[in-house]
């Protein structure tokens, strides 16, 4: 970077800095337009150059990783939503990767990759919510929070290590035999802990992007309501009193979610309220992949959280056969006798929405058998085999029909 550009860049930072440095006051009204983009950026300084180079190496590994959900149309759709949120001039250099992982997370590396966990798709319900998350991550990127967080982490962890040594009583010199774990980081991204102020700043930038876009900024707060609801329901089913927000990667060290949702509501531009949130386009875009993402979620064995997510999506985006089917599977796998009648009801609704859905007949038949409804169960399983004669478990189901167990 030339001296002149450095100077321009510094002055942009200086001009923008104070506005974002502190948490935006709630009385500030709507968030304003983000600062002008400072153009193609090259890393400066030992720490930043090092981080970029590590990220370049990480990106090579991620690109060939089995954990990458390598579906170009979905990645292209995410890029499109990002561009519509932050503006086409800003989004140009960004590469979008989807990581197959059923959790709520997204991150952006300093060298310009944005990584979206597949679990995000179950927790946002329209393009505006998706844009809020992508804009938030992009805000970290533009403000180079990673670099600052990295420097902060370095001094923070120093304290931790000293504390660990002082409190240690037993020896521990097990060394990891598998060096490949270093590569794992590459796929999921280095988990970065930002400070609350940095999170507020990124939220502020994210909502600023939305305000300036064609999407409805009021939707941004909804993501936090959904994820809070999921955690509360997950905790309630486990018999825990309080939900564990810290367990969600995206939440660690974030401002309290309620405060956050409230701030985002206040910062949304009122005139944007009548804009479209892009729900119909969103539902259409994710439809081909939704069954796989739902399957990943229900097999996490988090009954309360999963049930909440499926319902939230059904109630917001409209109930479809895959959503009813996923809920039926969730209840059948939960396995209590009282779960079976519910499972049967959901499978029946799935079949009502799509009478050719073989898997729904399978689930229905198994749930019926487990409820003692032998003849209806056999009939359902026969329909399953008729609809999908080449099913992976066809031989097992045939035997079940012959022998009865």
């Amino acid at each position, binding site marked *: 970077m030339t001296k002149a550009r450095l100077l321009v860049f510094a002055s942009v930072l200086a001009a923008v800095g104070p506005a974002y440095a502190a948490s935006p006051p709630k009385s500030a009204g709507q968030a304003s337009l983000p600062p002008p983009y400072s153009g193609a950026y090259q890393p400066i300084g030992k720490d930043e150059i090092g981080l970029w180079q590590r990220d370049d190496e990480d990106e090579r590994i991620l690109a060939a990783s089995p*954990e990458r959900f390598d579906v170009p149309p979905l990645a292209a759709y995410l890029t499109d939503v990002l561009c519509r949120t932050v503006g086409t001039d800003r989004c140009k250099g960004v590469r979008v990767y989807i990581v197959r992982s059923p959790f709520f997370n997204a991150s952006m590396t300093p060298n310009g990759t944005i990584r979206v966990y597949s679990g995000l798709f179950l927790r946002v319900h329209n393009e505006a919510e998706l844009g809020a998350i992508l804009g938030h991550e992009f805000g970290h990127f533009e403000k180079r929070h990673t670099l600052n967080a990295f420097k902060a982490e370095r001094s923070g962890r120093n304290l931790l290590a000293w504390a660990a040594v002082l409190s240690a009583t037993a020896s521990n*010199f097990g060394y990891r035999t*598998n060096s490949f774990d270093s590569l794992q980081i590459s*796929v999921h991204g280095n988990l970065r802990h930002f400070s609350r102020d940095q999170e507020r700043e990124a939220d502020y930038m994210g909502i600023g992007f939305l305000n300036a876009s064609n999407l409805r900024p009021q939707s941004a707060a909804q993501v936090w309501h959904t994820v809070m609801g999921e955690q509360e329901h997950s905790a309630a089913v*486990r018999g825990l009193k309080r939900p564990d927000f810290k367990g969600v990667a995206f939440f660690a060290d974030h401002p309290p979610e309620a405060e956050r949702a409230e701030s985002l509501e206040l910062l949304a531009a009122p005139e944007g309220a009548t804009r479209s949130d892009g729900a119909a386009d969103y539902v259409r875009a994710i439809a081909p992949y939704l069954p796989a993402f739902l399957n990943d979620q229900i097999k*996490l*064995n*988090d009954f309360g959280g999963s049930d909440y997510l499926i319902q939230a999506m059904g109630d917001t985006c409209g109930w479809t056969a895959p959503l009813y089917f996923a809920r039926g599977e969730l209840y059948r796998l939960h396995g209590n006798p009282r779960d079976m009648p519910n499972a049967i009801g959901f499978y029946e609704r799935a079949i009502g929405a799509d009478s050719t859905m073989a898997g729904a007949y399978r689930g229905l038949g198994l749930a019926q058998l487990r409820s003692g409804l032998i003849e209806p169960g056999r009939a359902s399983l026969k329909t399953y085999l008729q609809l999908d004669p080449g099913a992976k478990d066809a031989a097992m189901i045939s035997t*079940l029909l012959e022998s009865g*167990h």
Partner: protein
Amino acid sequence: MTKTGFVAATIACILVATPVQAHKLEEANVAVRVAKSKMSVTPERAWNGIGGRQGKQSEVWTIDGEQLNELIFFADVRGGATLAPKMKHVTLPTWDEKMLLVELPELVERNYRVTRQVTEFTQISSKPQTFLGRDGIAFEYEYVNADGLHVRGIAVATIIDGALYMINLNAPRLNYFERSKAAFDAIVASAKLD
């Protein structure tokens, strides 16, 4: 404690912590009871028993290390039991006495997804197979483990009076699954209840 005493205690502590993990040799052609149950097997080749890493009703063997071939015996697993030791922060799926054989692959899948941080898990096939002289199931699957390695798995199982009996092999799909499969088949064929 004096400083010298503290240092001495520290050294003692370190010496005590020296890993003494006796792995047990499972000789070829010798019948042996597994998972503290009445199930016994007779391997055709020598295996190594690895102690202390599984739940109560199970036992782990390996030939080349459990990352390369991991054989797990489950025997007399009763309703409410998990397939792996309980973990903090996650709820493990449990065996349910009313579960149908055809639902077993789903239980194994949920168990590995939760306990091994697996996100990509594919059921390959399931078919009937006699095991311990009873109607049973054989099923195969594949998953990507936390180190990015594609692991292929096979399990053969049956249910006796509501209790689960299962022998399960996990090995990388490159080379090791095929390399270990015959030894697995021999053990499954030799399994019997005393």
